[in-house]
């Protein structure tokens, strides 16, 4: 029965006109980097006095596309859809119509989550494929597909965590605009806090020249530097820390896992106790 519900939720999500719109935008967006690279390819860029010839492979096209995708665009789509799937359905009362049926609340919640993951996957595979084809067509060279695909895979994990996080917020605030605003408020706070930690880290060498090495302020700055990779923003963007050899910042990965599990627990508990009008 759960399989049937999952199938129904996936079909429902992909039948939403806005879902198709988001996918079309992602597909078109994935064509952009190839176009930009085609324009500058063959030119040269001066770095430290050395002129460097600009040349690209499909790997670069895919990497640029991923950066473009992850720079707010996809996250905004994900926040919107996650909010519509839970808070939206709560408000327009379609959630009620599902919950009067002989299903557990957990099944209703997690089938929606799986549908969102299907969107996440489509939102990754589509740019991956479009940018690969466009990159090969424009540059004629593949490059290291494995390395860039690892970044896409890391993004998938991060999006999975992020969608769970948004789902929890959506259930707590029970409003689509509230979810969007709430998520951006978190993002802003995270950004400010991250900048503060980065500032402390940047000031550390200067402070070290002024005070003794065992001064508490140096310890505090070391702690601040150690905290940064644990921030949610670092966790949700941990694909940026995955290097070509497949290495990654383990703290961000661990933080992502903690955030995902905590969000899942909050979402499950809130949904079980939710009074549906």
């Amino acid at each position, binding site marked *: 029965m759960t399989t049937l*519900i999952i199938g129904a939720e996936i079909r*429902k999500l992909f039948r939403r006109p806005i879902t198709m719109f988001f996918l079309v935008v992602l597909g078109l967006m994935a064509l952009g980097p190839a176009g930009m690279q085609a324009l500058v390819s063959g030119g040269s860029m001066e770095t430290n006095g050395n002129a460097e010839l600009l040349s690209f492979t499909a790997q670069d096209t895919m990497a640029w596309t991923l950066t473009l995708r992850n720079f707010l665009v996809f996250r905004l789509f994900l926040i919107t859809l996650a909010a519509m799937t839970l808070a939206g359905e709560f408000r*327009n009362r*379609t959630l009620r119509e599902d*919950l009067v049926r*002989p299903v*557990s609340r957990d099944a209703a919640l997690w089938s929606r989550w799986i549908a969102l993951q299907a969107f996440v996957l489509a939102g990754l595979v589509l740019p991956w494929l479009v940018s690969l084809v466009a990159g090969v067509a424009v540059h004629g060279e593949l490059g290291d597909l494995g390395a860039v695909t690892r970044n896409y895979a890391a993004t998938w994990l991060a999006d999975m965590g992020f969608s769970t996080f948004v789902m929890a917020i959506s259930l707590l605030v029970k409003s689509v605009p509230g979810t969007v605003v709430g998520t951006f408020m978190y993002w802003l706070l995270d950004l400010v806090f991250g900048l503060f930690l980065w500032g402390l880290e940047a000031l550390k060498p200067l402070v070290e020249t002024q005070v003794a090495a065992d001064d508490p302020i140096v310890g505090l700055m070391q702690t601040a530097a150690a905290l940064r990779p644990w921030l949610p923003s670092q966790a949700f963007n941990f694909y940026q820390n995955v290097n070509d050899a497949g290495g990654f910042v383990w703290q961000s990965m661990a933080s992502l896992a903690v955030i995902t599990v905590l969000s899942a627990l909050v979402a499950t508990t809130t949904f079980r106790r939710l*009074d*549906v*009008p």
Partner: protein
Amino acid sequence: MSSALVVKGLTRSYGSRVVVDQLDLRVEPGDIYGFLGPNGAGKTTAMRCVLGLIRRDAGEVTLFGETGPRARRHVGAMIETPAFHLWMTGRQNLEHAAAYEGLRPKEAAPLIDRLLARVGLKERGKEKVSGYSLGMKQRLGIARALLGSPRLLVLDEPTNGLDPDGMVQMRDLIRSLARNDGLTVFLSSHLLSEVQALCTRVGIIKEGRMQVEGLVSELLSGVSAKVGPEQLLLVTASPEALEKALLEGGQITAVHAQRPGELLVDLAEGAHLASVMAALGEAGALVQSVTPVKRDFEDVYMEAVRS
């Protein structure tokens, strides 16, 4: 055989306000049970608790002897104006609901065809619900409620917002489902005439507590004794003479002011139409018409909510 629905000691509060207070009710298989009460009496909260949409603070809900989410497989529900995914067609909405009933697409397809035909939407099933009228949505809501082949149909204000024609259609459909398909129906409504016309049993709640529960026929027959004497409406050219004759003859106990030439009188204990006519004949009072005033369900309801 188990009762279709048994509610025992159902209680739900919002903060310090007790909305449903130790509510007990029982719906037997085959009943068309009308659940009545003034606005804010706790009907909607109680119905949502029965369907598991709202948590209960205390009490027990049993559906055909079972409890928990799985027990809801016996139930089809339509709560107020049914909500649909407007970007999907009527048929797609039913397919979605069928999955939640555990029906595979192949099993669901013929059932959906049948139900769309049953509610008169066979030709409109492939249209997006955003283009449906309210009446069509209500009928699609009934089709959706019937998807799991339920034994109990829970309907909250099923005719809410419908035009008179839509109300008649909905009422006929409910009646047909109860009579022809053997469904037990548990419905709430503000329309007393609707409840009187449809229901076999009623429960009237006030401030979250059950005030009166019983068969409609029993409650109606008990009206005279409960809410006052039987009444007659007399039309005459000489009301003063007529009132005097009846009072002196001990046939009536009170006269209520009506339009000019009309008297509404409360019959005394033991008096009836024939004895009143005889008294009028003896007194030589002329009367143009005499109409026994039949009390209806409204009296039962008003007595229950005013008590």
